[in-house]
């Protein structure tokens, strides 16, 4: 079985400063890992995806994440936060071609101060 732990339930940053959202996973197999963002009263939008290619994954809106197998981590970063980055972020893992059920982390709420 796999599980996902988002280490921070809430992150607050100033506009223009870096953002770091931490995610650790456990999986018996080589997982696929995702970060999704959800703005208030909206659906989930895919930020980026790792599927055993490059360990540094670049996503939309300036986000990127690094897969570290030795640390079982998949942390999300952005060098400079924008007000529009205020949202809920979910780290998600799935096992493979027969896995239809996403394992979600609990989510991290990001607030951005002007």
């Amino acid at each position, binding site marked *: 079985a796999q599980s996902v732990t988002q280490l921070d339930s809430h992150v607050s940053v100033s506009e223009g400063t870096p953002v770091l959202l931490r995610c650790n996973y456990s999986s018996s197999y080589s997982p*696929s890992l*995702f970060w*999704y963002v959800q703005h208030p*009263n*909206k*659906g*989930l*939008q*895919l930020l980026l*995806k790792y599927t055993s290619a490059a360990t540094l994954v670049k996503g939309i809106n300036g986000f990127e994440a690094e897969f570290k197998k030795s640390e079982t981590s998949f942390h999300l970063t952005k060098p400079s936060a924008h007000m529009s980055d205020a949202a809920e972020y*979910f780290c998600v893992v*799935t*096992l*493979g*071609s*027969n*896995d*239809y*059920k*996403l394992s*979600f*982390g*609990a*989510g991290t709420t990001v607030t951005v101060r002007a």
Partner: protein
Amino acid sequence: DAMVIQNPRYQVTQFGKPVTLSCSQTLNHNVMYWYQQKSSQAPKLLFHYYDKDFNNEADTPDNFQSRRPNTSFCFLDIRSPGLGDAAMYLCATSKGGGETQYFGPGTRLLVL
């Protein structure tokens, strides 16, 4: 643009009155999913269809049913909504298992 569409965006129903939520996709994906998301929680998978094959999660209440009449459309039926069913309902699609899931904007259900 290819997308996942949900209607309506907001739905108000009365306690015990059946309600149907709609999802359509232009991605031509094989798999369609329904999730329930309560406030400040991660989405919870209710069921999914691979083509016409229905797969129910073990802990999904019988009160929740689904129909997929064709590749493009999928419906969520709540037979007798209770106050605890008030939530955001998200539809998603993917090409297959383990593939990226693409989410619709959601329908927020309010039960009075």
